[in-house]
């Protein structure tokens, strides 16, 4: 009798053991199905991870174009100006703007006006500096250089534009903070200008001008942002000042649009 009772217990243990395997398989299938559903939904509602991946791809694209841009600039028309003058100008600008480099604090109108004045001074300084050192160069060549630069950079910006919808500008800001590369600042100026966030566009254009005072894009976005912020006179003043030193068709067009009020 005891033997059969013991046997029944052993049988129960055996059945339990036998059930563990199929139950484990079912559990694995269930978990796999849940994971599959999760992955499926994530296609419709992208997770931070996937967004971050997209941003990384975009940033890589930007970096590639920055490299390409540097190569173009170093091999083409800007080659005579770039290596020495830009560095000198940056030094001048950095000295002039040192106390006001923190953009986030510049929120009042007064500060903006002050910064515009300072920008103009810097522009004058830098452009004067370049003009002095580049007097020997033909005006036509200069103009061509600007146009070429403008073309190549606008190409780059087109690429940025294509990527804009896919990315988070905060990532680009982060990249800018890490690298201090002016192309990120240009991109952000354009991004905020296109997004009609003219305050930010203005600030990033200002940053561009600090880092690269001869950047046509920087001055154009700076002027356009000022115009959009109802500071048409300041915008005109900035562009005229720029055109005093450079022949830029883009700057002339922008100035005409601002004066006519059609921008």
């Amino acid at each position, binding site marked *: *009798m005891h033997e*059969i009772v013991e*046997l*029944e217990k*052993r*049988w129960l*243990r*055996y*059945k339990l*053991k036998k059930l563990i395997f199929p139950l484990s398989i079912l559990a694995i299938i269930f978990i796999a199905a849940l994971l599959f559903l999760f992955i499926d939904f994530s296609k419709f509602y992208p997770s931070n991870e996937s967004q971050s991946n997209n941003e990384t791809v975009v940033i890589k694209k930007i970096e590639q174009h920055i490299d390409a841009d540097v190569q173009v600039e170093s091999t083409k028309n800007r080659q005579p100006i770039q290596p020495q003058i830009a560095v000198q100008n940056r030094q001048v600008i950095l000295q002039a703007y040192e106390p006001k480099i923190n953009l986030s604090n510049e929120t009042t109108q007064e500060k903006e006006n002050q910064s515009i004045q300072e920008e103009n001074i810097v522009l004058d300084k830098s452009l004067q500096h370049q003009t002095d050192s580049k007097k020997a160069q033909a005006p036509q060549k200069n103009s061509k250089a600007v146009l070429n630069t403008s073309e190549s950079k606008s190409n780059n910006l087109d690429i940025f534009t294509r990527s804009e919808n896919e990315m988070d500008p905060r990532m680009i800001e982060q990249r800018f903070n890490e690298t201090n590369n002016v192309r990120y600042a240009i991109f952000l100026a354009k991004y905020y200008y296109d997004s009609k966030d003219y305050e930010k566009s203005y600030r990033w254009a200002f940053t561009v001008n600090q880092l690269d005072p001869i950047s046509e894009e920087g001055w154009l976005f700076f002027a356009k942002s000022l115009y959009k912020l109802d500071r048409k006179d300041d915008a005109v003043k900035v562009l005229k000042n720029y055109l005093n030193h450079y022949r830029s068709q883009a700057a002339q067009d922008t100035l005409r649009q601002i004066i006519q009020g059609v921008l």
Partner: protein
Amino acid sequence: MSGKSRYEKVKLVFTDSIEITDFIRLDNSSLFYNQVIESIKKPLKMILIYGEPGTGKSILLNKIYHDLKEDRDIHFIQTPINDEKKFNKKISSILTRGVLETDNFSKIIEICQKLKGHKEYLVILDEAQIYSESIMESIRLLSDTRVVKFIITLHKTTTEDIVAKEQFKTRIWESIYLKNASLEDLEKYIQKKLINKNFYEIANQFSQKDILKIYDFTNGNFRETNKFLYTMFDIYHYYDINQPSKINYNKISKKIIEMAAIKLGYIDA
């Protein structure tokens, strides 16, 4: 356990025996039976029946013995005699119809020489692998006289292939290999065993799945199947007396099949 249960009798159907009444005619067993009968008719010195334990060798020989004993001088030595003198006495007794019992092998050979051409004895030796080398040599010499024809059964072992042994090589003219039952044969075997003892109701309770499950455990070996079913009906017997509510009397319980398998070590639980 106390009280009466029909399963007590059912389990006895599957006790291991070589009784002639327990011989079940299946396709394979009928084939082997006819093969042996045909071989006996041939002028062979020796017939070897070999196979794994539990494949029905002994019961087949017993059946042959019972079927032929009326017509032929046939002797069945079921229990191996490992003492040479006793073996010689047994053979001499067979040859002289009990008149002379001698352990002198030369004398036995002499008797054989005298009987040659006049008489032929058929001696069935079960479990021949138990016999010593010297007795096997005596068997070889006796078979050479053509007065005694031996039918011997051997267990097929992996370590020792008896068929390949030198003393058999030249003498065995017929060897029959008995295999385990097929699934279909096993089903017939179980059904027939129960029906022969009038347990029709129990026989009908077995489904194909039950048979397949038992076959998986016993691999169609008759001895293993008998042992399995004996254990299974022993468990039934317990439940029938002590916990009848646990038994479905219309079909064989899968649980009890598995319990029997656990008890016999087929399932490690």
